[in-house]
């Protein structure tokens, strides 16, 4: 199993005795209410999902991340983890202040403010997403951020209430779980969709070479029209129940709002899975992409820039079902013409589901298809 990114699994949760002490002072400290994406970031920092980060970026790390795709200490890092606040709010807080970060969902954390700074959002978007087009959901999100940024280490006092407790495992827990299962090599699979036969094929092909697979759906804010989180989880439960060996597959979620940053996000996804204990990660066509913003294989090519990432990517081309081969194939393995191919097109699967038609068995397992089709609206609608 690889070491966590940066060498050490970060734990920024206060101990019981420290919590009690902190509770006594809470009302005297400045407070900032967080959005849901920031709640995820706070918990991911505290629980080691974002190791080696111990807090939100200061300006030095942000600049290094944008320009070098690395933290200021040279450790690979491609997606900024920043805490934005409105400009007028930043005037009330000073460096060295302790600030309470909270949300009505139960999250409570304290941040030691190291630095207040500003950053040009257009420039930030250009570096992270390669575009400033506000039709890109990641870019649009950047332009909604507050005008000031605050950096500093955080400590978690209490966690937010979460759905899906069963699937909410922390890196420390997955690492112990993998060890208990006797897995030395584990491949991570990032997903934001219910599984079709192509996904299953990719997962099982990768699994052939390692000890176990870690299916890690991203749970969080998604685009309108994406599948609902509960549908993704239930469909994977069905797939795993009927078609996977229990001792070879584990599913747990990643609470994170997709940025759709394509190649940069692929590296970030790899880092996060390394922290969960994965030695390998599956990177498919247009990983973490959206629309036509990225070359379909840019998310694979970017790995060449990181000889020190510490997790091995397994690259896959796009797959299809070939009627003449009688199975899943790709351009490297199938000699037949396109007329024999059935594509695993997400758009096509969505259309069938909207029309209440079962996708064919060559595309989706019947147990999974039936589960989705029974739902009145399995998609995110707002």
């Amino acid at each position, binding site marked *: *199993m*690889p*070491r*966590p990114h940066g*060498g050490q*699994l970060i734990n920024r949760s206060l101990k019981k005795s420290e919590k009690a002490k902190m509770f006594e002072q809470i009302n005297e400290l400045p407070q900032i209410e967080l959005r849901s994406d920031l709640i995820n970031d706070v918990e991911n920092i505290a629980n080691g999902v974002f190791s080696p980060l111990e807090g939100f970026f200061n300006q030095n790390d942000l*600049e*290094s991340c944008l*320009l*070098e795709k690395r933290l200021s200490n*040279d450790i690979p890092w491609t997606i900024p983890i920043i805490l934005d606040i409105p400009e007028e709010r930043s005037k009330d807080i000073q460096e060295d202040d302790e600030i309470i970060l909270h949300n009505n969902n139960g999250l409570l954390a304290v941040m030691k403010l190291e630095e207040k700074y500003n950053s*040009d959002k257009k*420039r930030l978007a250009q570096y992270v997403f390669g575009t400033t087009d506000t039709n890109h959901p990641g870019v649009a999100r950047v332009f909604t951020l507050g005008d000031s940024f605050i950096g500093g280490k955080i400590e978690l006092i209490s966690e937010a209430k979460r759905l899906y*407790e*069963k699937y909410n*495992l922390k890196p*420390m*827990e997955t*690492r*112990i*779980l993998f060890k*208990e299962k006797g897995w030395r090599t584990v491949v991570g699979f990032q997903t934001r969709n219910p599984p079709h036969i192509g996904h299953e094929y990719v997962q099982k092909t990768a699994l052939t070479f390692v000890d176990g697979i870690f299916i890690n759906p991203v749970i969080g804010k998604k685009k309108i029209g994406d599948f609902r989180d509960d549908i993704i989880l239930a469909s994977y439960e069905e797939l795993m129940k009927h078609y996977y060996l229990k001792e070879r597959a*584990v599913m747990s979620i990643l609470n994170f709002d997709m940025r759709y940053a394509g190649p940069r996000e692929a590296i970030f996804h790899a880092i996060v899975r390394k922290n969960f*204990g994965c030695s390998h990660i599956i990177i498919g066509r247009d990983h973490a992409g959206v629309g036509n913003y990225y070359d379909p294989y840019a998310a694979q090519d970017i790995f*060449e820039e990181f*000889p*020190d990432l*510490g997790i091995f990517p397994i690259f896959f081309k796009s797959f299809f079902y070939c009627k003449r081969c009688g199975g899943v194939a790709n351009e490297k393995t199938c000699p037949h013409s396109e007329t024999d191919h059935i594509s695993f097109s997400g758009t096509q699967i969505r259309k069938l589901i909207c029309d209440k038609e079962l996708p064919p068995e060559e595309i989706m397992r019947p147990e999974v298809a039936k589960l989705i089709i029974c739902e009145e609206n399995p998609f995110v609608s707002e």
Partner: protein
Amino acid sequence: MSEKKDEEKKRKKFTTVSIPTPLFRKVEERIKDTGFTSVSSYVTYVLREIVTEGEKEEEEHPFSEEDEERVKERLRRLGYLE
């Protein structure tokens, strides 16, 4: 901020290391027609690879016994472990 300023910022983060001139020339030859744009970028790449090599494997017991037991108990309760 202009690209020029960003380039300047990047440059400031670098320092100099001496290598023998014949080795420099060899590397220059080797990186022709590759994605590497300079000897420095190639040497940085190789060094990053080597430096990380020794840090790869997790320690045998990274967590305390108490933490490990607490986690195993939760994993059993959630059905991940028998």
